[in-house]
């Protein structure tokens, strides 16, 4: 549920990330997914589900960088 405009990233163990209140999916590959300011690196990455509010990413995560 959308409660404010701040982007929020939640990590579930090392294999699932949910990003809420995102604005733009900038890039996607098996090793890197870029959503707004978050650069997620890992292996076998894929977007399981996406809608106008959230993105659910599955795979083996290694690093989350904040890029500006």
């Amino acid at each position, binding site marked *: 549920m959308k409660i404010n405009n701040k982007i929020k990233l939640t990590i579930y163990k090392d294999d699932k990330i949910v990003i809420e209140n*995102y*604005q*733009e999916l900038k*890039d*996607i590959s*098996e090793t890197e997914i870029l959503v707004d300011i978050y650069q997620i690196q890992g292996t076998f990455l894929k*977007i*399981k589900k*996406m*809608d106008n509010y959230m993105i659910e990413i599955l795979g083996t995560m290694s690093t989350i960088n904040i890029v500006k």
Partner: protein
Amino acid sequence: MRGIKVKVNAKESSKLSKKNINNIKKKDENLIFYTDESGIKDLISEIENIEYENILKKRIKYFFQKHLITVIALIIIVILLINQSVAITEIRFINYNTYDENVQSFLENKLKKVGPFYYLDDSLNNINFEIKSEFYDYEWISITKNGAYLDVDIKKQKVPGFEDVDDGIVGDYIASRDAIIKAYYVKKGIIFIYESLYVSKGDLLVSGNLKYHLNEIEYIKPQAIIIGEVLEYKSIKVEKNITRTERNGNLIIKNHLSLFNKPVFSKSPNETETEKKDVLNILDFIKIQKSYYYEVEEVKINYNYDEAFTYAKSLIRKEFPDNDYEKIIFMKLVSYTEDDNYYDFKFIVKKHENIAQFVPYNQE
């Protein structure tokens, strides 16, 4: 349900933002994912170079392309099965010796032909109603549909004592005793009697010789029942004191185990009368039987005159056939003697009975 598979260039990834999308994967320079009808409409308006296909339609198309012959064969089989359950291939008279040409043609008129198949032109209920009205002389007539067969169930009127069996032995019916003819039913044969006619034992009643009046011989087996009024004397001797073995009402139930048809651990009680029922039987190797032992004892019966008289009458009634045509009109005591051991009754019995006695024709 995400029913549409979409392929777009990976550079267009930002245009996918905020869309309802599942399972995005990058393959070569393309992104492959699934969306729904509204999602694809939005994407088409934003992305020029886009490929998409409806998965359900694709799968159905693929299935029919791969299994076209199987599907056609299945449809044909289903149509044939449905047709078989509706069509009629044969009219069968299910009871022995009940074929009736009129019934057959009646039913054939109720069939309509479409190509090589025949179908009923009315409901089974209506045809059953009509056939019962048309052939009312049968005790029972009905039709049922059994697969592709139309089964006709006919039960003919039964006359007690009259057996509609032609075993090929030709001959005549003669009187088995002196009598006055009261009724007769002749299905086959030449009739020599009429009602109230007095006949003596041995008189010809119905002949199987069809050319009797032409002084020629052509025999069949006649079929007839002839009821005559008969007077007869009957002597019945009743013992005054008798001893009988009868069940006294006590019952013992026991289970017995048998292996290879040989009893194991079984001790039977001394009671003589036994009934056995199988409780378990595995190929006669292992058997468990429930045995019912009825206790019996000797019963002494002493008849007085009244009891002996009733018993004697009951013996006469017991040996006489009990049906609609044959009956005892009256039974009167003519004489009675008694000694130390027996009552001796002599009755005169007036009765209606079938006096037709079949005598085979001797061809020599």
